[in-house]
């Protein structure tokens, strides 16, 4: 088992290395420089800037410097935010996205899973139909529509909340809802179908026949197995929501990293793009690792790495 994790961690590091290399060279191939302006900069100034950012070094040297910096979590200075390092920017902006993403994930777990379970148990009743109707809308309406509607209704027409600024608990409702609506709907549908499948299994009937209470059967046998696909989904989803959503952060005008990341692409802020890409990649890889660990808690067969009778 230890070998398994060591192998996983090594392959994660290798993946990061590949991503870093690819990003670096793709960035170099991108047309248009970071110092492109409506009025081109004076050649002396351009030379100064290139010197400062080591852009006049040979490509291989830039690459090596970059990779060494990466190991030290030093991605250099942003080309746009004068005098601010990429690491500082990440430290400044990531918490906003993390907070929203964490709340959205919590929301998905606390609301989405129970809805799925109830729907499965009350299959084909009005409760199930209503829940699945809303969930179907949820997976078809994009987050930015939810966000825009929310702003125009609750901040505009009704004026119940402030459209921007996370300075009051109520201002979290909109962004969290918009961020989680799709996943919430998806998770409740996933939980429902997964539950239904388990409920039809023979061992469920056997367990009941053996005299176990309904609650115990559902809890001990059904739920546990039904949650495996949900957990598989939650890991990458968590990584996706905590790294911020460009659209939602833009609609609610939040200083998160998602908006900043996309803007930095438009600005050709090379160091920022590469730094955040690596940061995202690392988060994603860590989440996938955590999901694997979570599996082994839920299902011992995975931990033991071989099939075993239930």
């Amino acid at each position: 088992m230890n070998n398994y994790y060591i192998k996983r961690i090594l392959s994660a590091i290798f993946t990061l290395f590949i991503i870093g290399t690819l990003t670096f060279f793709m960035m170099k191939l991108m047309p248009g420089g970071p110092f492109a302006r409506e009025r081109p900069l004076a050649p002396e100034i351009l030379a100064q800037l290139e010197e400062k950012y080591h852009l006049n070094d040979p490509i291989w040297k830039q690459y090596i410097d970059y990779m060494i910096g990466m190991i030290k979590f030093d991605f250099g200075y942003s080309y746009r935010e004068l005098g601010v390092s990429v690491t500082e920017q990440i430290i400044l902006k990531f918490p906003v996205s993390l907070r929203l993403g964490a709340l959205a994930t919590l929301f998905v777990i606390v609301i989405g899973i129970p809805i799925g379970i109830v729907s499965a148990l009350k299959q084909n009743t009005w409760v199930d139909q209503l829940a699945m109707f809303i969930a179907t809308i949820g997976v078809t309406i994009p987050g930015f529509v939810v966000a825009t509607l929310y702003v125009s209704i609750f901040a505009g027409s009704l004026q119940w909340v402030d459209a921007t600024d996370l300075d009051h608990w109520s201002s979290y409702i909109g962004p969290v809802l918009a961020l989680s609506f799709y996943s919430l709907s998806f998770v409740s549908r996933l939980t429902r179908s997964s539950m239904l499948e388990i409920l039809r299994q023979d061992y469920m009937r056997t367990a009941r026949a053996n005299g176990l209470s309904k609650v115990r059967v559902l809890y001990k046998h059904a739920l546990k197995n039904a949650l495996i696909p949900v957990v598989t989904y939650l890991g990458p989803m968590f990584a996706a929501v905590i790294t911020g959503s460009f659209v939602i952060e833009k609609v609610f005008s939040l200083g998160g990293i998602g908006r900043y990341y996309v803007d930095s692409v438009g600005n050709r802020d090379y160091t920022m793009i590469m730094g955040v890409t690596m940061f995202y990649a690392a988060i994603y890889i860590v989440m996938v690792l955590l999901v694997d660990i979570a599996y082994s808690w839920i299902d011992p067969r995975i931990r033991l790495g071989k099939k075993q009778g239930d």
Partner: protein
Amino acid sequence: MKKFLLVLTALVISFAVVACTEQSTDTTEQQPMILNWNIGADPQTIDPTLNGASDGGDVINQTFEGLVREVGGVIYPGIAESWETSEDGLTVTFHLRESQWSDGTALTADDFIYSWLRGMDPATASEYSWIWEYTNIVGALEAVYDGGDLNDVEISAPDDYTIEVNLLYPTPYFVSLMAFYHFMPVNQTAVEAGAEGIWAKDPEIVVCNGPFMLSEYEAGVGLTLVKNPYYWNAEEVYIDQINGDFIDLETTAYVKYTAGDLDVLPTVPSAMVSALIAESPEFHVFPLLGTYYYNFNMDDPMFENVKLRTALTYAIDRSAIVEVLAAGQVPATGFVPGGFIDNEGNDFAEECGDYGIPTDDSKFDEAVTLFAEAATEMGYADAAALIDALEGTVVLYNTSEGHKLIAEMVQESWRQVLGIEVVLQNQDWAVFQDTRENGDYEIARGGWLTDFMDPAGLLAIFTTGNAYNDPNWSNEEFDQLMADAQSTTDIATHFEKLYAAQDILMAELPVIPVYYYADIYLIKDYVTGWGRSVLGSLDFSHARVDR
């Protein structure tokens, strides 16, 4: 399963902790006069010397003040109480008032000298350093471009409250230029405490000299300005606090405006504009000193014929475009927009007339005639052959809904009037700039805004070899007129040459003028006394907010 529940509980608790650490800061009823202003995007910098963008410029105009302050084209004394220009127009002397920095220390002539030299120094890498060329200060051009010694720049401080500047040529707009943010003073101690302009965003370090000073700055979210007690004219500053938001999505900002959470918006969603123009007294339109146009690639043999260029220019309905854009733009019939006043007090653009360029569809027939003549002159059998030759000509623009809309209207107009099928292509801004500069295009969108109150600021870009001469047009007579206009010591001659220069430009039409830019604002009617400089910066130094 218990373990799973345990993990879940742990997750719940940790999230709850994360959520709760965010303090709720309910704002209580405030007595002071507060202005809520959406600045737009988070400015790259608010260091006057480094800034090159209008959002930064808007903030700087509140936090700093130059020798003079310009509001609505009128020059008011700023840190300079008075000034005079020598008889030959080559020496300008400013007399400074005794004023203070926001930390209470004295602001002297040396502060200006330090700031200006910092702006010229290539090591500072200021985006606006090019503007020194247009100040005509002796030695400035060399200092910025040719490694000239900063000590050779002829600006001096005979005493603590006098600045003397020597010019190469009389420069009528020199004093008004001093209102521009690049020429505002910065405090050396502060600048050195936070390199690369960081000082200006750090409330702990920043030292300024304007009506307001920075008290908070949250990247990507907003900033807070408070009244600067040390400002020389603090008595006439009414607003106590300005809350500036960085909301770059127009619809969100507009929602906040209608909800009363914002008092000033720099833009509005385009869908709202026509309704607002018609109905809202809170909607304001100002002309901007700039022009939207299309470049012909003059190195392309296809566009050598002036009649063809003229036909294409005539075959566009500018009024229809401006109507669709509906944000106060004015159809362009020249390259210099209205707002520049000549030596006799006349508006430059008005004096120029329209050069026969139609603002509407009135010259479509003439366009067809010219097109046929061009076909013959270019050696084509008939107009149809030229139509074939032009088929597939690419009109290039940088990716944006607005540019796309205009390009589509031009495309449609050329199709209907002349029968030409052009193709539209868009590129990302950074890529587009390279393509255009390298001349890898046939017809490309252009836009030019000037930063000083002289038509030369627009016309000069078409001199041979100018870095911004995107059509790569070259005309000796034009070059000579522009050179004469700059070197003359007589203001009448200066304008005479500029008039003649634009005559040539509009006769040759290396560019198709489309419209003159405009600036729009939405400002609540309870905000009064605000101003705007002709160069485009908002001014709240005398504003009031009476909700």
